[in-house]
């Protein structure tokens, strides 16, 4: 440790620290713009100049290494004179348009100008004019004259998002930030550039001129989207969510959030919100009061289960529902005599049920990802499904970790890969089996008996060799692996590989409450039907909580058929959908309008409160389920507060950690040969993954929300006799869709990438499996 003195106060810092680090440790604020704790040091703004003993000139605190015995003064005359001079220079070309600037009130330049700037400028010449830039639907660069060239946005792109989408061109006063070739900024993390921009150059396009920061109240919340559970600050004005910002949590999202977390709020007040309970009567939807709707629902549920037995009821819960909602939905279903409840809507293989040792989870704390030496990610659309986990893996790779990819498409994860093995989905188990065998041979361990006939390829050996070295290792299964038709085999193989290599293994997990679904018991526990079975064996009645079966289920065709045929379907959703099959639509609160908890991929239960009043007649789903339970005269629904619901959770929050476990007793079987013909690879595009993002207008304008194409490589196009750009007819099971064909070298031979969760593809059956393609 180094001992030094800042402003006369002694402080100890680790070698490699800077004067800025030492000052921050003491709680001394050194003014700065370009410095950001998560980004590399640029030392270009010069605002943090401080006085250092024996140095004739002031030195930038952010870039000056701390040294033993060093003495520095951050507010001495020399330092403050230099800081004031820099402030004057920064204002030379900065437009004084604070009154109409969206950054006003939360602007670092404005704040520091008050502290260090003069009341009038000595610069009386014309100011620089910088033309506005179009960076896409999320980030506004309409006022680039405000830019102070700190390059935080450039460094963010290079270092955090992984792609240098912005750069600084020109020299001297003519320097300006541009996107390369005038393109838009397409990173799934782009919104963070708005946060780190210290001035009003990059601002939020959806929030443009919507409110002033001081009019907004700041309320904590948790992201309802991916399984990371990013901590949020939701900003509210007049009971309306105006904006979402990250809440710093080093163990979870650090200081970042994905664009999905940031901009999905636009859906909260959108035109598709369901604001009153509605009942279908004679083919007409009529708005009713809650009493009528609840009586109707309770009566129908009682009626169906009385006539056909409890098993006639199936409950489909979205993995984005809260822990409390899931718990009560499962309890209601069971109390009505049914064990048919599930939240794993996109899962295809349930052979692992009852074979697991605990609740599937990430297998390691999120924060540990940055420190891994070796990582194998299996079947994951990593960047789009888990943007901030991809970011952490990027940091690990920067520190020297070998990250390997086993996947069905060669997605660019924007991080250096040690090995990449791309094969059609049906061959993923065989590929992983090869790696297991190669690793076993390297380690001198026993090869699982079923894999005796597997001869590992060179790639399998290379990946196994990578995993054989290093200290901290992880094997992570992504959404494609979890949704795979052989998901239970992939898990068993990953377990075997982890055992051989001494790695930890786990599931990246699909949604905000995928781990919570297990905690809540929202899955069959005593022989009930899982999500797939209760659609393939249609039920008489369904309860649909937050889910949109046409987009959220592995087989939307089967889902539609089952729902269409049901006598009674209750849809509990914040949005108006399911009108053609539902019997009753009950408006329930989205995450901003209810208290609840999500359990993220590392098993961390995060509670949140509603930040605004429910819209219209909307009610929190937990209250609704509680009332339904009471109306039906069922025991276990007598709650007055959310805390009472939490007290009745099957697994208390504190006990979750002890229940996590990815171990499986599923026996490894000899991997099957690949399927004949062409097979489908389906991703769930980032901005179609849940009901909220689907309805967020700005997100829907991004490149990530482009309509799906039938993407295949040139060889497959040729083999099928179709041309890129032309429409093709795709048949999968009973379903069929017409999409434009597109050439995509990232897709392996024999596979076609057709995104799911989109209206244009929801007539196709299943996220994988054989498909037929012909010219349309």
């Amino acid at each position, binding site marked *: 440790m180094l001992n030094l003195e800042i402003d006369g106060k002694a402080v100890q810092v680790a070698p490699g620290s800077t004067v800025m680090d030492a000052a921050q440790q003491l709680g001394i604020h050194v003014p700065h713009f370009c410095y950001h704790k998560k980004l590399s*040091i*640029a*030392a*270009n*703004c*010069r*605002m943090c*100049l401080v006085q250092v003993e024996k140095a*004739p*000139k*002031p030195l*930038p605190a952010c*870039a000056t*290494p701390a040294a033993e015995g060093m003495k520095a003064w951050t507010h001495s005359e020399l330092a403050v004179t*230099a800081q004031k*001079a*820099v402030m*004057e*220079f*920064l204002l*030379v*070309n900065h437009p004084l348009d604070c009154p109409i600037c969206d950054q006003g009130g939360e602007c670092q330049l404005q704040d520091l100008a008050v502290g260090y700037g003069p009341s009038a400028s*000595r*610069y009386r*010449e014309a100011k620089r004019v910088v033309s506005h830039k179009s960076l896409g639907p999320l980030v506004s660069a309409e006022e680039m004259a405000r830019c*102070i*060239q700190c390059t935080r946005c450039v460094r963010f792109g290079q270092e955090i998002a992984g792609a240098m989408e912005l750069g*600084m061109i*020109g*020299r*001297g*006063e*003519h*320097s300006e930030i541009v996107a390369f070739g005038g393109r838009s900024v397409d990173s799934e993390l782009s919104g963070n550039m708005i946060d780190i921009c210290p001035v009003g150059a990059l601002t939020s396009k959806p929030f443009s001129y919507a409110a002033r920061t001081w009019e907004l109240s700041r309320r904590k919340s948790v992201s309802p989207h991916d399984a990371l559970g990013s901590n949020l600050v939701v900003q509210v004005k007049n009971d309306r969510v105006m904006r979402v910002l990250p809440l710093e949590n080093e163990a979870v999202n650090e200081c970042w959030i994905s664009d999905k977390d940031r901009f999905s709020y636009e859906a909260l007040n959108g035109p598709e919100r369901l604001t009153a309970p509605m009942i279908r009567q004679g083919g007409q939807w009529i708005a009713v009061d809650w009493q009528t709707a609840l009586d109707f629902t309770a009566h129908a549920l009682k009626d169906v289960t009385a006539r056909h037995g409890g098993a006639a009821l199936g409950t489909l819960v979205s993995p984005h529902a809260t822990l409390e909602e899931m718990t009560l939905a499962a309890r209601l279903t069971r109390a009505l005599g049914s064990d048919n409840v599930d939240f794993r809507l996109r899962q295809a293989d349930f052979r692992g049920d009852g074979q697991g040792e605990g609740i599937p989870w990430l297998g390691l704390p999120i924060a540990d990802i940055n420190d891994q030496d070796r990582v194998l990610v299996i079947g994951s659309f990593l960047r789009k499904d888990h943007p901030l986990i991809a970011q952490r893996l990027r940091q690990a790779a920067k520190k020297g970790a070998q990250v390997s990819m086993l996947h069905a498409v060669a997605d660019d994860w924007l991080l250096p890969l040690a090995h990449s093995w791309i094969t059609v989905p049906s061959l993923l188990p065989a590929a992983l089996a090869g790696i297991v065998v190669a690793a076993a041979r390297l380690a001198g361990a026993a090869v699982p008996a079923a894999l005796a006939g597997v001869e590992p390829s060179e790639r399998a050996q290379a990946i196994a060799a990578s995993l054989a070295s290093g200290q901290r290792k992880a094997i992570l299964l992504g959404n494609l692996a979890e949704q795979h038709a052989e998901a239970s085999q992939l898990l068993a193989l990953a377990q075997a590989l982890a055992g051989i290599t001494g790695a930890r293994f786990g599931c990246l997990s699909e949604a905000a409450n995928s781990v919570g679904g297990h905690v809540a018991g929202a899955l069959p526990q005593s022989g009930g039907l899982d999500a797939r079975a209760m659609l393939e064996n249609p039920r008489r009645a369904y309860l649909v909580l937050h889910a949109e079966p046409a987009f959220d289920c592995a087989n939307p065709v089967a889902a539609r058929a089952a729902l269409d045929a049901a006598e009674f379907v209750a849809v509990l959703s914040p949005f108006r959908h399911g009108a053609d099959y539902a019997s009753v639509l009950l408006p329930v609160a989205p995450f901003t309008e209810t208290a609840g908890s999500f359990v993220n991929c590392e098993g961390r239960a995060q509670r949140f409160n509603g930040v605004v009043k429910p819209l219209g007649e909307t009610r929190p789903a937990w209250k609704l389920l509680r009332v339904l339970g009471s109306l039906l005269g069922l025991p276990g629904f007598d709650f007055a507060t959310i805390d009472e619901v939490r007290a009745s959770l099957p697994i208390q929050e504190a006990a979750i950690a002890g229940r996590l476990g990815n171990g499986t007793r599923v026996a490894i079987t000899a991997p099957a040969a690949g399927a004949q013909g062409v097979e489908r690879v389906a991703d769930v595009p980032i901005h179609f993954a849940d009901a909220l993002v689907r309805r967020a207008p700005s997100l829907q304008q991004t490149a990530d929300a482009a309509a799906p194409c039938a993407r295949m490589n040139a060889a497959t196009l040729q083999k099928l006799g179709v041309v890129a750009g032309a429409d093709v007819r795709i048949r999968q099971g009973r379903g069929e869709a017409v999409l434009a064909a597109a050439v995509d070298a990232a897709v392996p031979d024999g596979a076609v990438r057709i995104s799911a969760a989109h209206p244009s593809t929801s007539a196709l059956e299943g996220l994988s499996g054989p498909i037929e393609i012909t010219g349309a």
Partner: protein
Amino acid sequence: MSAPGGFLDYGPDAIIMAGLTGSNWRLADYVARGGYSALRKILTERIPPTTVIGEVKRSALRGRGGAGFPTGLKWSFMPQQYQGDKYLVCNSDEGEPGTFKDRDILRYNPHVLIEGMAIAAYAMGCGRGYNYIHGEIWETYERAEEAVAEAYAAGFLGTDILGSGFSFLLHNHHGYGAYICGEETALLESLEGKKGQPRFKPPFPASFGLYGKPTTINNTETFAAVPWIINHGGEAFLNLGRPNNGGTKLFSVSGDVARPGNFEVPLGTPFATLLDMAGGMRDGRKLKACIPGGSSMPVLPGDVMMQTDMDYDSIAKAGSMLGSGAVIVMNDTRCMVKSLLRLSYFYYEESCGQCTPCREGTGWLWRVVDRIEHGQGRADDIDLLLSVSDNIAGRTICALGDAAALPVKSFIRHFRDEFQHHIDHRQCLVPAYI
């Protein structure tokens, strides 16, 4: 040696540029002049690298690019035991207004540079070197390419040089004309294919240089002096000049002199002698002012200059710096406001824009000087110029900020009355008729 007064007469005391005719630049000519004997001697006698560095230290050779840092000391910063690539870089990005000496070395005696670099590479254990030549002198770059090709063919570059087991691969690289790329870390960035912007130091190039590897960067003329030092000994080089100011120096004399050009004289030569070599003042006019070390250095009044000797310490004592050795001579017809305007515009245009004081300050300085020159000056403008200069100097990542500020301060210090006259009377103090 060419005839005295001829195009390539660098002066009687020239050592680097001795015997040049303009066409005897090829390898055979250089070898005939005794070239590559120093490299051959080191490699055949297996002189230890530390001895070579010791000799350079003894010579008191100082960096000829402008900063004047002791070369031997710089070489000793390179980690000797470092496992891995080390790089040697020659800074031929001669962009300082008034400086045109390195171009002559590259055009007329390129092999002296190649030999000097090979020796330096041997002394520091560098396997690869780059010679960064600025973009506007394309034909010079082509000649350097030819010379390097000759040296490879003759076995003075490449692998296993002269059968010694020592290998050195030298490449020429041309820039695209940005002045800032003459700053050594900006040069490294540019060489790496990035935007030429200076790096913050520390870390210094000796520990984190080209591609993050230990790197030494020297000026062309510095390397060019090395073969003579090895052949004649550091002591002899030092004795050519003055203590702490060893050897000869090329001065690029330009401006209002009868015979502008490059002159290689021992350090410590009186300015008056150098002026005579350059044919004295053109048309016999009076010497008004002189910038002795390139446009970034403070200007000195003519009478001060005439009392000054041309070496690092003497010029520093007189209130300026030797810099790159570009001597810009101005006679009594020169308006100091207009002269400063030209300089200020240069720094405004060449600021890389990376750090705030330089990016915003150089434009501000230029605009204020511009309005003074054009009769729009305000009463407090001189104080404003001094204040803005003070606010830039010493607060930037590289020395360009200082380079922009120093001329402003020195022009005002020595010629304040001209600026005041421009402001008060909205016209030039220098009568139009002279």
